Structures are given as structure tokens and as C-alpha cells.
């Protein structure tokens, strides 16, 4: 029915925690117990297909190896690894023989092996980092991965661009100006600060994309997940800009044919969609004009699964604008 994401189109009514009383932290762990979310992820053929290619087509990497699947969910990645000839696969989150499933949070679990040759994980969240399990993967790497061991995937990159989005902004934001004849504009400001997870067509993109963050899973540290990145976007046509758009690419550089996939507007649909950040005012750009600025991203101090994102931007000859967003 629902998932635990931020404002997505199909997010209708909230779910209740099933039993006991939960903090929102526990709720996170529980929200994955709902099969709906697994279903959505497995039906995401780009995601699951990429992992399959990266694993099943690289038997030379998996044959006889020990594999740790971090956040294994339904265990599909573990099964791919078993199929690729792995000696033993441990899914940290039950299968027999080659696949051992350990249920629980990885940080609190003792694993049946001390070291692994390969870590596989599908840890990415909306906007790459929202509710992501990346810190758990990094922890697992430091604790369990052999020296020169492999991580699937091993590279992630985050991009930003600017888009024309008049119609949706009208529906999602300006809607609050007149609600059945009443003035609801005070909600508008808050609505603006909630990034919207949605699919955007490529033709809406008005500028070139700009890379704002590269994460090398073999070397990244937890601190790297808090960052400020400058960007410069050049308009590819005359148009208006209503929002920034962010997406990420994932690659398995250690594979023979370098399996990769993108969650961008130019690529096939994934359940991650893209993330839209509406600007308070509309920007007018002519071809070749530049928007310069920076994006900062940090876990929220109170709830570290929430993300505080600030975007500062400026069009040549105009005032600088700064808006704080929160993904929660």
C-alpha cells in the first residue's frame, strides 16, 4: 500500500507501526517488513536487472567466494550471488546451505564469518542518501571486508540540473493559493521546502547536468556523507526554470563489462524516480546563461534519517537566493 518515502505521488495515508511502540527509528526498520516495498523494488527491472548482470555475469569474481549481502530484504541479491558460484552467502537481515540469513540490524549482529571476499548491497534511497543504508554498508566494509575485497556497487554519483515545471508547480505548490475559494498560502512555503520525489520527462530539463557528489564505496567515510558542493548549470535553450532536479547513477566498476545504471530523466524508470526542489520564484534563462550556486546536504541533527538540504543559487545579474529543504 504505502512506503516510507517522502512526498511521492502514491504516498496517500501513513502506515501504523504494527506492534509494540516504536520510535521513528524502529519504524524505519519495520517499514521494510511490509512486502509492498519489496514488491516495488523487485519490479524495478532496472535496479534488479543491473544487479543481476553485475553478479550473474561475473562468475569469475564470485566463484568460491564468501559474500555478505547487507540489508538483504527478500534475498534476491543473495540468490544471484549463490547462482554465480559463491561459496557462502550471508544475508544480514533465512536460506539454507549457501545462504545464511541473519535477521537483525547489522550493527548488533555477530556474523558466522570473520571476513568476506565480497559485499553486495542495495542501499540507495531517494536522492541517493535519504533513508539510505550507506553508513551501514561502510561499517560492514570496515568490519568484515577482506583487504582488496569487492563491493557491489562500488561507485555512486549525484547530479543536479534545472527544469521547467510550470504545470506541476501549479498543482503541487500554487494549489495552496486558492483551496475551494480559501487562501491557504501559508502552507505554500512549507510545501516548497519538501522535496518532491517524482518522475520528470527529459524535455523538461533546461540546462546541462552537473555532477555534485561522487562516492567511491571502497574509500568513502561516513563523514563524506555531509557535504557542500558547488554547481554551475548552463541553459541549453531559452526557457523558464521552476525547480532543480537531482538524480544519481550507480556503477559496478569491478565487473568485466562495467555494469551501470542511471536514475536520471534520460533513463528508464526506476522506483527512485527523481527528486524535485521547487524554487520560490521562477527564473528566466536564455540559452548560454548560467545558474551558479551550491548544494549542501547533511543528516538532520534530531533524526539522522532525515536530510537537511540547502540550495543556494544565482543567475548572473540577479540576487542570490537560498532555500532550505528537508526530506523527512
Amino acid at each position, binding site marked *: *500500500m504505502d512506503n516510507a518515502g*517522502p*512526498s511521492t505521488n502514491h*504516498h*496517500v*495515508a*501513513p*502506515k*501504523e*507501526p*504494527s*506492534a*509494540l*511502540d*516504536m520510535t*521513528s527509528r524502529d*519504524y524505519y526498520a519495520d517499514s521494510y517488513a511490509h*512486502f509492498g516495498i*519489496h*514488491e516495488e523494488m*523487485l*519490479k524495478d527491472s532496472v535496479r*534488479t*536487472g543491473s544487479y*543481476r548482470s553485475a553478479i550473474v555475469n561475473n562468475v569469475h569474481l564470485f566463484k568460491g567466494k564468501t559474500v555478505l549481502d547487507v540489508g538483504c530484504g*527478500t534475498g*534476491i541479491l543473495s*540468490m*544471484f550471488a549463490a547462482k554465480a558460484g559463491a561459496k557462502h552467502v550471508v544475508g544480514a537481515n533465512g536460506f539454507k546451505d549457501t545462504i545464511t540469513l541473519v*535477521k*537483525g540490524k547489522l550493527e*548488533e549482529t555477530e556474523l558466522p564469518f570473520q571476513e568476506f571476499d565480497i559485499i553486495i548491497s542495495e542501499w540507495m534511497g531517494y536522492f541517493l542518501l535519504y533513508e539510505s543504508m550507506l553508513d551501514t554498508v561502510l561499517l560492514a566494509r570496515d568490519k568484515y571486508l577482506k583487504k582488496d575485497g569487492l563491493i557491489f556497487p562500488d561507485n555512486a554519483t549525484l547530479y543536479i540540473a534545472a527544469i521547467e515545471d510550470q504545470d506541476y508547480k501549479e498543482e*503541487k505548490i500554487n*494549489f495552496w493559493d486558492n*483551496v*475551494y*475559494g*480559501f*487562501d*491557504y*498560502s*501559508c*502552507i505554500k512555503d*512549507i*510545501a516548497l521546502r*519538501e522535496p518532491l520525489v517524482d518522475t520528470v520527462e527529459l524535455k523538461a530539463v533546461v540546462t546541462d547536468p552537473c555532477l555534485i557528489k561522487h562516492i567511491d564505496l571502497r574509500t568513502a567515510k561516513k563523514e563524506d556523507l555531509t557535504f557542500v558542493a558547488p554547481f554551475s548549470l548552463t541553459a541549453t535553450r531559452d526557457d523558464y526554470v521552476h525547480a532543480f532536479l537531482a538524480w544519481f547513477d550507480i556503477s559496478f566498476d569491478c565487473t568485466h563489462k562495467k555494469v551501470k545504471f542511471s536514475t536520471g530523466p534520460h533513463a528508464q524508470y526506476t522506483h527512485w524516480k527523481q527528486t524535485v526542489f521547487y524554487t520560490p520564484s521562477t527564473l528566466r534563462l536564455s540559452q548560454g546563461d548560467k545558474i551558479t550556486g551550491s548544494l549542501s546536504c547533511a543528516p538532520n541533527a534530531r533524526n539522522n534519517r532525515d536530510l537537511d538540504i540547502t540550495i543556494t543559487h544565482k543567475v548572473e545579474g540577479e540576487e542570490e537566493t537560498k532555500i532550505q529543504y528537508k526530506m*523527512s
Partner: protein
Amino acid sequence: MSVRLSQRSTLPEDDSGSEEGTASSEEDNEEETWDDWVSDSMEQRACRSLFEDKVLPSVQEALAYDKGTHGFDLDGFCAQLSLDTYRRIRLINFVRKTNPTSAAVGALTGAEELFSSDEYLHPVLEDDPLLQIQPEDWSDSDADDTDPAKRIIALEKRLSAAKQDLADYRALVSKQLDIPTLIAAVNEPGNISQSAPARDDDSHYFQSYEANDIHAVMIQDKVRTSTYAHFILTNPSLFHDAVVLDVGCGTGILSLFAAKAGAKRVFAVDASDIAEKAEKIVKANDLDSIVTVIRGKVEDITLPEGIEKVDVIISEWMGYALLYESMLDSVLRARDRFLRPGGVMAPSQSKMLLALCDASEVSKERVDFWNDVYGFDLSIMAHDLYDEAIVDVVGPHTLLSEPDTVKDLHLGVITPRQLDFVSSFKLLCTVERRTKVNSFILYFDTFFTADGQPVPDGTEVKVIRESDPIVAEVWPVGGRPAPQRRTSSSFGTQVELSKITSFSTGPQSIPTHWKQTLFLLREPFIVNEGAFVFHFVCSTVTGHFHCVKSKTNSRELDVEIHYSVRNEGETQDGAITVQMYKVR
């Protein structure tokens, strides 16, 4: 999970004549004669008072005597506590056995152990006529029950079967959930508070309503919002100069409608942070002299300015499957605390409807999918789908039967206890060919009346179909006054009907944010098209629908559907199948 029970042990009404040891000689197999039989032969039998040895010539006289002499009205008391048949039987036997005073009986709350004890299912007086009479307006459950003596025997069997089921179910749940691990997880250091904390079903609930998105979805549900708007803005006699309470106001839209409709004072109450936004919105619309936003739970608040009672309570409390999230309890509490006698609840009535449904599309997408995931069989994931209600939208052509009302809630009088219920249903198939039924479907119709009274029987709900324009003319758009409808239009001609405002969340209507609730069947069954054999006959599905608040989270629901199928030409119902679901 799905369990199959043998027909004999679970269907008291179907074992006539075959149960050993029960007097069945006087039974008549014609069902139509049961009523007469009960009222004539039973009520006229001598009956002992509940509180002394005096024997009165009939049950009615005995009850009247107890009422007059001891101040105890059995029927009234049972209705007040919403005692079902079994609890009523236990109460009577309890009184017969332990001889309490009438005052002591009057002080019972319905929650005492005696109401669940097997002991009091055994008749204390042999052939006690009091056990064999039901109050006339006996509502939902088991209206078709007959001989109480047999009932009790059947009931005992049913109870032991149910106990076994429960034990099996517990074992299953325990196995599936890995309870010891769960307990260990809960008790792990860092997570402990020494004593178990009181369960808090509320925090997450109220927090979840703080995000804007949910409010956008609700406000943009045009069927919902425009129906409320239509009712509030077209009943000036009700709202003009009225004091109005809006329970769970959210962004305050209903309060704003009420203010626009001429209310003197409107109190908008919400326990979540959205109340702050509602306050700003009220101000922005210059209605803060009329609308006062109160942040808090309606159970705890007091009204300002010495106002104690209100004329109208408006609330949009409905959840998935109507009762999921149980906000209705708060609304009823608000009614008991604040509504003046003769005041109006809006909406005034909601009906839960059950029907058969062809959910094969949903099933294909959500069940069959797991059979082959990249070549792996993950069908174990689909297993759980049969334990949970699925909230989804199905089209108008998926209904396979007439709907039957399983619960009719009159908001003016219903009590929270009555929200846990068992009711019987009979579904007449409307299929035109042999068809597989793979799901029950549940949805609700909601009615608003200007006097708060229930709608007359047979009142059709207004269904807004996909192509219909939504009644949006009631508020000014762009500052222009609303165009007036001419009297020749459909609204004007049906004066009576226009007094009733309603909407449906059924498959016939355009989808609402409530969608519909589907209960997938572990064991789909086949029904046949109807045929004329002297008169029209069709396949029927009969059974009982159980709906109670979950013991583990009062905002969730536990649903049980007991059903049996009788295809045309068959002389009796098939075996009873029971399937249990969680709505969460």
C-alpha cells in the same frame, strides 16, 4: 490464515434435527414459521424473575416486573452495553446462579470476566425461556439464530474449535514473527526502559498527519471535499448562527466552509501540529473572529468562552475500510461531551458494504508476480498477502454480487463498543456466466442529513461517476458568485432527495483517497449465473463478517470472514470457510 471448519460444528442454524439430545420434534422446517414460533410459544411461557423466586406468566411480564420492582431493564441494559447474544446469555445465567442485587448487576460494565466465561453459557434454570428470547430490535449479529438450547451446544463446539484455531494461530504467528528474537530485540540495551511502557498508538498517528502531502491528497480528493462543502453550504437552516465543532480539523477546510455558511462560532480541534497551520489559514482568510483553532485531543479539551454545548459536529473521521485508524472513537467522545440534545452529527450515517469481487488484476500484479522473480520462486512473499487487507482501486465492472450492508452506523447514537461487531451477510451473485470469485470487497457510503436522522431505508447513495462533473458550483470561483441552479434541474425537482447529501467510496464511484478494501481469498470459488427455475435463482454466498479493533494496536482492525457458497440448484450451503485479515 484460512481454516476450514466442518459445517455441523459451526452453523447452529443448519443442524436442525440432527443434533442428538435436543428436542426437535416441535420444529418446523419452514423457516418462515420461526418468528411465530418464537413469539407465540416462547414468550407465553412462564418465566421467573431475575431477582426473586416469583414466576410471571410470560417473559415480557417477567422483564416488566424486574423493571418495575427492581429497576432493572434487561433489554435496555444489554443495548446500553452492546451485549451480543452470548454475553446476554452469560449475564442471565450469572444472575440466576449468583443472585446479585439489581444494583450490582446495573453496575457491570460488560468487561467483567463473567462475560467471557464458558461457565455461564450453561443454562442455570432448565429450559429458561429468558435465554430464548431476543430483544426485538436485535441488530447485527446472528439475527437468524433459532433454538437457544441447540445454539448453546453448537456454541460450545464452536468455542472449542475457535480455541484450537487460536492456539494454532498463536503458534503460527509466534513461528512466523520469531517472537523470542523480537522480544530479545525489544529488551536489548539502549532500548530498554525497565518496565514496559504504556503502549502509545497515537504518536505515530498524529505525527503522520503533520506532513503537508497527506493534507493535499485529502483536500484534493474532490468527492470527499466537495460533498462536505455541498452539505455545509446548502443547509443554511442548520449552520446559520450555529455553534459548530470540527473534530480532527486538519488544515481547517470544513471549519472554513461552516464559517462561510453562517456559523456563529466554529471550534476546530486537532491534536497534530497541523493545528498551527490551520490557525494561520483561518487568519489569512479573516475568519478568526468566528473560527477558533484548539490544539489538543478532543477527549481532553474544554471549549472557550464558557461554551459547553454545540449545535453541530462536523468531522471527516473515515479511514480505510471505514474504521481503520479508529478516529471515530474520538468523534463519539466529542459527541457525548459537547453535542447539545437534538444537535446534529455531520455526517449522520455511514454504511459498510460487502460484496464479491473479481480482483484478478490486483491478484496478478501482487500475488502471481512472486512466483517467478528473475527465475526464482519467491511465492512465500505472497503468502502474507492473504492475511492483510489490500487497499486498492478496482473498476465498476469487478463487482460480482449485490452489496450487503454489514454495518450501519448512526452517528447520533452509536457507542464505541458497537464498533466491534459481528454481522451476518447474504450476497446474491450478479454474474452472467460461471465466474471465479477471488476476493471480497468492502467499501462505505456516507450520508449527511440536515436533521441528523438516519436516511430512510432504500435511500440510494449519490454515486459520482467518472464522467460526471463534480458539484463545484457551491463556492465562488475567482470571486464570482456561484451560478444558481434552475429549478428544472435535477436538484430542484427532487426536493426530498436534495436534503440528503451522500457519497460512495464503492467501485461505481470515481476513486476517492480511501480506495476500496480487498480481502483476497486463499481458496477462490466458482459461482454460476442466475437462472429462471419457476422464479429467478442465483448463487448466494452467506456468512458472518467480524470486525474488531486489534488487540496490539487499537488503530488497526482484525477482520474475520466466515462464508459458505450455495450455487443455484444446490439444496444447502457448502462448507464454511474462515479467513482472517489484518487491516493496517
